[in-house]
């Protein structure tokens, strides 16, 4: 992080030396336009900051987020196994306000009126927008697994898919599990948030158990046909390092759970009983997007125009991140949410300030997965917008994966996290 002293020095020097250059004269007067951002995750926080940056502060931005701080879902499995503390993945929203002039409202949006261009807050009053950025993330489809809502409410069965108190609660369950116990992870059918995340978590738990409770097992029960991301790499790691501790089974679709005995019922196979049960149900676009009628694909995901991420149902609402139906080969990742937010922010600024829109925006993606306390591996991709396809597509020849996990990539993964958090929030 840049120290305050260093920052002030940089600002002083920067302003003096650039004074008189075309850029310095061009800080824009307020346009009177207002962008409201709902959701302060990888997508929403980035959009809030970048509308301010790209508009040179000419556009007012209000960020509405109920949580007092950002807690990163990425790296939260490292909290579950105790490699990181929750504070290591928690960041303040203060710089958005202080450094970028974003108005932050800590509240929950209860209703969106896309006709009148207003959002209503839980505390009552309404805020009008010229453009709305909606980034509500995912919601768990608790009803898809009978007994899960009850199990979660009782703290017995934890999805721990969003980071925070459930990450810590699952960490405690892992610590308390008997040596010889079975830690069960169930994975829903794709698409879901962060394809490699459940396999990363399984690897990390296996690594933990190998060290501290070596008679135990991790049982990975996947509704999918196969590992959905970095498949050959994960399987190689599991075979080489966790052969006696991690077992993977495909086509296991969980349909019910008994929260008291921690027994899971599946669509086809026999019941499985767990000592710790990390049950991840299917997910869909955040409830706000569904309520506003924007989840127009299978009532689960929001369809957008990929040139500017505006909803195909409401032109002045831009939906970002995990709530959208992604372009082909485009997973739901924090990195992509951050990139989509900048594409949308540039398009919104171009539109509101009457500038040409980028006809061919680019996106990159990098997903890191840890396999133990030190080593990580990655998948990377570059996407370009195709006017003909009206969608993003992977740039041919680009992208790829690690040959194997390494400590060097582990250090890159942490550097990625710190840089992307700063890019969103600082």
């Amino acid at each position, binding site marked *: 992080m840049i120290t305050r002293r260093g920052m002030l020095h940089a*600002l002083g020097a920067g302003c003096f030396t650039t004074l008189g250059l*075309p*850029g310095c004269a061009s800080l824009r007067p307020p346009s009177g336009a207002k962008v409201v951002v709902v959701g302060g995750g990888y997508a929403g926080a980035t959009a809030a*900051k970048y509308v301010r*940056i790209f508009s040179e502060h000419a556009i007012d931005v209000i960020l509405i987020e109920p949580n007092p701080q950002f807690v990163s879902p990425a790296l939260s499995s490292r909290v579950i196994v105790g490699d990181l503390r929750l504070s290591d993945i928690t960041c303040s929203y203060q710089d958005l306000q202080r450094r970028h002039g974003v108005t932050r409202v800590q509240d929950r949006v209860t209703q969106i009126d896309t006709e009148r261009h207003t959002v209503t807050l839980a505390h009552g009053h309404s805020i009008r927008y010229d453009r709305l950025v909606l980034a509500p993330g995912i919601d768990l489809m608790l009803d898809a697994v009978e007994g899960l809502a009850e199990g979660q409410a009782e703290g017995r069965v934890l999805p721990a898919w969003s980071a925070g108190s459930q990450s810590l609660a699952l960490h405690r369950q892992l610590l308390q599990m008997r040596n010889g116990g079975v830690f069960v992870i169930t994975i829903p059918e794709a698409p879901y948030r962060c394809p490699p995340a459940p396999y990363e978590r399984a690897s990390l738990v296996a690594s933990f158990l190998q060290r501290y409770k070596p008679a135990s097992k991790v049982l990975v029960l996947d509704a999918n046909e196969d590992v959905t991301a970095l498949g050959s790499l994960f399987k190689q790691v599991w075979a080489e390092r966790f052969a006696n501790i991690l077992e993977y089974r495909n086509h296991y679709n969980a349909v019910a759970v008994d929260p008291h005995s921690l027994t899971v019922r599946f669509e086809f196979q026999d019941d499985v009983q767990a000592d710790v049960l990390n049950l991840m149900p299917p997910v869909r676009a955040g409830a706000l997007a569904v309520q506003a009628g924007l989840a127009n694909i299978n009532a689960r995901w929001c369809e957008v125009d990929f040139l500017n991420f505006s909803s195909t149902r409401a032109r002045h609402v831009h939906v970002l991140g995990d709530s959208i139906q992604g372009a082909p080969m485009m997973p739901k990742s924090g990195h992509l949410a951050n990139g989509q937010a900048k594409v949308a922010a540039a398009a919104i600024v171009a539109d509101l300030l009457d500038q040409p829109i980028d006809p061919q925006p680019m996106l990159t993606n990098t997903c890191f997965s840890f396999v133990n306390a030190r080593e990580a591996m990655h998948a990377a991709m*570059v996407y370009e917008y195709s006017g003909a396809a009206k969608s993003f597509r992977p740039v041919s020849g680009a992208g790829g994966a690690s040959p194997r996990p390494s400590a*060097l990539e582990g250090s890159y993964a942490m550097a990625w996290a710190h840089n992307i958090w700063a*890019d969103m929030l600082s």
Partner: protein
Amino acid sequence: MLCVALIGAAAAHADGTAGLLVRSLAASCAACHGTEGHAVRGSTIPPLAGLSRAEFRRQMQALREGTRTAPRLMGQIALGFNDAQIEALALYFEQQRLTP
């Protein structure tokens, strides 16, 4: 705090409206390399702000050709950008001041 935007704007407005386009393109690097190329202190991923145009071009070319073996990840990303994009990025990052 106004000055942050001013510094960023210097490069962006060298040629009028292209400013927003190149800033938006450069923002695709920011997730890993920091906003406007300013990586956080101590990051093992290097900052791009202040790199000379020639150096940026040379490194991207080497990454695309695979002549620089590490890091593989950036080689995979570099292959996604064409010459014109690399040139625009080289100019943009050269104009960003490296924060001391």
